[in-house]
């Protein structure tokens, strides 16, 4: 982590072009080498293939190469950084942002299996891999909260219980909706319209917008300050996993709309619900200790959404554009 660029520099630089060497570094790095990878490059990598989306077998093969062992991470230095180097303000801001991910990973892990039922056989391979990724990410946060933050608990749920007080009340909008959408799919697994609504919330909103924003905020802070090397390594590897999830999800939505153009209505209806409850927050998160202002987080959030929509070719209706202007970021993800 030699580079100490400002966390928000990428907002001013705009999208960057990745060289073949940089792409190779991101794709082929073993876990121990991920510490050297720039998170802004990984987020750019998420978008790299959105215009010509890879097929599900290609994504599955990438998974087999890129999967990592969450138990290989050593959080010893992170604990020192957390206890001795970070200020109380930094710790509180960090945990307020990261807790949405701690719970988000658990939610997306358990809500995904039903989506597999109605998928093509190739997509089933990709989804099975994604479920394993999400389970690993859940363990990653469990270890971070136990070994670095110092939360106690006899099992994974006990640690989730301990971090829940930091989760915003507005978390229920995307993640409660996802739970209920999963229930809808459990009853009607081949209902393509229900699948598109579910995919819009899960792949476009939660993974494509919320998750990438929270990753960027905490990871750029860690890189900027030179803190939390195991968190940076594991969560950057998580971001690389997310690139496959977002690309697979966007592939699914793009294919669905190409097959039946009226599916765009399902995407719009879902976004209409999400955006109509995203204009309010229940508690104030102070981003400044992590190197961000509210306006910069908001800009990051819109950047993530716009890039997904533009790259995949999803336009917004005027009423959705208006709702979008009122949106406040919810920093959570999965």
């Amino acid at each position, binding site marked *: 982590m030699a580079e100490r660029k400002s966390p928000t520099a990428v907002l001013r630089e705009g999208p960057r072009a990745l060289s073949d060497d940089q792409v190779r570094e991101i794709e082929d790095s073993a876990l121990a080498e991920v510490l050297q990878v720039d998170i802004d490059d990984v987020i750019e990598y998420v978008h790299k293939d959105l215009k010509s989306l890879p097929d599900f077998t290609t994504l599955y093969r990438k998974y087999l190469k890129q999967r990592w062992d969450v138990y290989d991470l050593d959080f010893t230095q992170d604990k020192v950084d957390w206890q001795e180097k970070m200020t109380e303000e930094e710790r509180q801001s960090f945990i307020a942002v990261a807790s949405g991910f701690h719970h988000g990973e658990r939610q997306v892990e358990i809500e995904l299996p039903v989506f597999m039922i109605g998928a093509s056989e190739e997509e089933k391979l990709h989804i099975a891999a994604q479920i394993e990724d999400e389970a690993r990410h859940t363990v990653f946060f469990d270890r971070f909260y136990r070994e670095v933050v110092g939360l106690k608990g006899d099992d994974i749920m006990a640690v989730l219980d301990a971090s829940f007080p930091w989760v915003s*009340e507005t*978390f*229920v909008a995307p993640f*409660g909706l996802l739970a*209920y959408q999963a*229930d809808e799919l459990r009853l009607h697994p081949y209902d393509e319209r229900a699948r598109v609504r579910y995919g819009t919330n899960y792949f476009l909103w939660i993974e494509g917008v919320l998750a990438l924003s929270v990753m960027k905020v905490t990871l750029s802070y860690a890189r900027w300050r030179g803190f939390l090397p195991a968190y940076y390594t594991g969560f950057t590897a998580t971001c690389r996993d997310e690139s496959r999830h977002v690309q697979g999800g966007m592939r699914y939505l793009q294919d669905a709309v190409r097959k039946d153009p009226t599916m765009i209505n399902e995407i719009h209806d879902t976004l209409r619900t999400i955006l109509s*409850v995203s*204009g309010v*927050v229940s508690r104030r998160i102070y981003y400044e200790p992590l190197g961000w202002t509210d306006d910069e987080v908001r800009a990051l959030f819109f950047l993530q959404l716009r890039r997904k929509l533009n790259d995949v070719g999803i336009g917004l209706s005027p009423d959705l554009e208006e709702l979008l202007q009122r949106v406040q970021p919810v920093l959570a993800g999965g």
Partner: protein
Amino acid sequence: MSPVPDFFSPSWAESVRAALTAGPSEQARAAKLQEYWDFFELIKSMYPASWALGCRDLPDLGSTAYLFVQWDGGTVTGCRIIGPDEPLEATYVLGMDYRDWKALHEGYDAQRTVMYRKIVLEDGDLLEFFKAIYFFVESLAVIGSVPAVYPQTLRSVAPAR
């Protein structure tokens, strides 16, 4: 002093009506930003829908009973218990096990009650329902806080998670 009503009794439904009309407690309001409560009040003022909130495996009844709540113009215009033999007509029908109602009453978080699918939407437009999700969650917390006598069950009850 009035006796504490039995859970899912007509007098409990009457207490629920009063509690929903009064809204969340000062303690609950103090814990969240005013803009959140402004949004809550905005939704409440224009919410035109009704809920039928089911309780499965209600002790003594052995089947599902529903608490019917009708909203109109920012107030509760109907709040009563619907028995298993009555017609069930509501904009949104939701169901929850008795043990989860009891857990909610004992302080289990209303947001997690939704997220962990303790309460599920059995009938109604899902996307429309979620446009008022904060209003629903806060109202569910209010309903859970209404004093009631919760009968013991013969079956062992697993810890709420």
